[in-house]
């Protein structure tokens, strides 16, 4: 059963230097508060896993927390580049960043395999692209019935997965709705998990389209109101598109980025 603890305690207990950490949330429900707590606790050498690194990974990378990034689309959605990610890859600042790169379909299926207790997933993907040339984690596999050749990718098994959700009940059952992305799979694929929530309520009244994650499948729950900002929590907030646009300027320059992080996060 998941214990409900403070965000600082949860990150302190669950996230260790050198861990493979997945913060998921597909545009919606991105766990910014948890990511920034990881920065405050100065974790190092993390392997960051995420389909769409987004601004939160730009911050983690720019603050030197990451050694490696496993991802499928590393941009600022609707705006442009993630400048801290680019600076790390192009110039090694503040430290070099190793990349393992996939397609969305590949990453999604890697989480599915992890959640399913399988060592790999099969998809129609990557064929003819230059992606398989850059990682050993994309390989051909033959159908034992038809002989057709498809693509296999290994399961993702993060040490910790972190997601944000609308709410939990007092037992630690979690409910999220709206665009629910790959969060169920990310949590079930991980060895440990943390869910931050907008609020804790007495009862999870059913909501159309909601995913419920039972408390016994989670490790820790922490309350973090508005913990997805500048992403959003459907029914609680809207996406702060202005912030995403503003981040382009804030993050372009190393000094301005560092000053902003010192003022707003540390």
């Amino acid at each position: 059963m998941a214990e409900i603890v403070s965000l600082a305690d949860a990150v302190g207990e669950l996230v260790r230097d050198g861990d493979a950490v997945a913060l998921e949330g597909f545009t919606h429900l991105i766990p910014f508060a948890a990511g920034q707590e990881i920065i405050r606790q100065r974790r190092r050498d993390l392997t960051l896993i995420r389909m769409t690194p987004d601004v939160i990974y730009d911050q983690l990378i720019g603050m030197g927390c990451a050694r490696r990034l496993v991802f499928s689309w590393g941009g600022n959605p609707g705006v442009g580049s993630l400048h801290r990610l680019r600076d790390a890859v192009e110039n090694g600042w503040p430290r070099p960043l190793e990349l393992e790169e996939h397609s969305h379909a590949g990453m999604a299926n890697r989480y599915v395999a992890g959640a399913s207790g399988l060592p790999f997933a099969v998809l129609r993907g990557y064929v003819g692209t230059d992606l398989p040339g850059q990682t050993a984690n994309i390989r051909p596999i033959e159908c034992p019935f038809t002989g057709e050749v498809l693509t296999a990718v290994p399961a993702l098994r993060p040490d910790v997965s972190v997601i944000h959700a609308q709410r939990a009940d007092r037992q630690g059952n979690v409910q999220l709705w709206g665009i629910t992305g790959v969060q169920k799979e990310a949590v079930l694929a991980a060895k440990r998990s943390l869910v931050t929530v907008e609020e804790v309520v007495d009862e999870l009244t059913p909501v159309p389209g909601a995913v419920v994650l039972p408390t016994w499948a989670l490790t820790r729950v922490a309350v973090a109101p508005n913990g997805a900002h500048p992403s959003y929590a459907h029914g609680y907030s809207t996406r702060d598109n202005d912030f995403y646009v503003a981040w382009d300027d804030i993050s372009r320059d190393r000094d301005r980025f560092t000053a902003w992080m010192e003022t707003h996060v540390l």
Partner: protein
Amino acid sequence: MSYSSDEMMCVAASRALRDRTVCFVGIGLPSTAANLARRTHAPRLVLIYESGTLGAKPDSLPLSIGDGILADTADSVVSVPEVFNYWLQPGRVDVGFLGAAQIDRYANINTTVIGGDYRHPKVRLPGAGGAPEIAASCREVVVVVRQNRRAFVQRVDFVTSVGFGTGPGDRERLNLSGAGPRTVITDLGILTADPDTCELTLTHTHPGVAVETVRAATGWDLAVAPDVTTTPPPTPEELTVLRQLRSP
């Protein structure tokens, strides 16, 4: 009404979408064009965003592919694994809409790295996202991209998404089920993959654009159809709806 070359590109892209078809939409120009189509000639166009929103009907343009307006207006919101596995992969989608940082003669697309080598690129781009599988599995693909020599190159620095590979027969050899990026719509004109050679061939120029201008904006010796025609200019309705979409 006067209009910009970007508006012409967007209108031309929207016209490529037929009513009652299913369209897999990326963010930016593709989303704008698809919503323009839905608000003009294709009211029953079905939009799928990779965030899992099937049948989204946004009133204003989302900034991201995961804005709340998409979930609020969708027929169904499914998980991200489901949208790729159950909806895209089996070939249920009629048209996939893609952008590109680089595109070559055989419509291969690069959105990964430019210059240097993969580990030490000159420019690190966002990467693949949903594009490789959209390019592989949609019944057909429409690419929307501004045309210039930086983007239209002899050979892409990195194949993120396969167009026609190195030419005829390659898609079949790779077992890609869709017909591929047969149409490329730019701010200068429209290019179509030649059915025999698979080479992108200029078939339309937008009003006021000379064939020579398009050639000059292309990094290879661009094939030109014998009967290049002029794209009809945006209608006042198209422009009005487009501008409303952009600043609601």
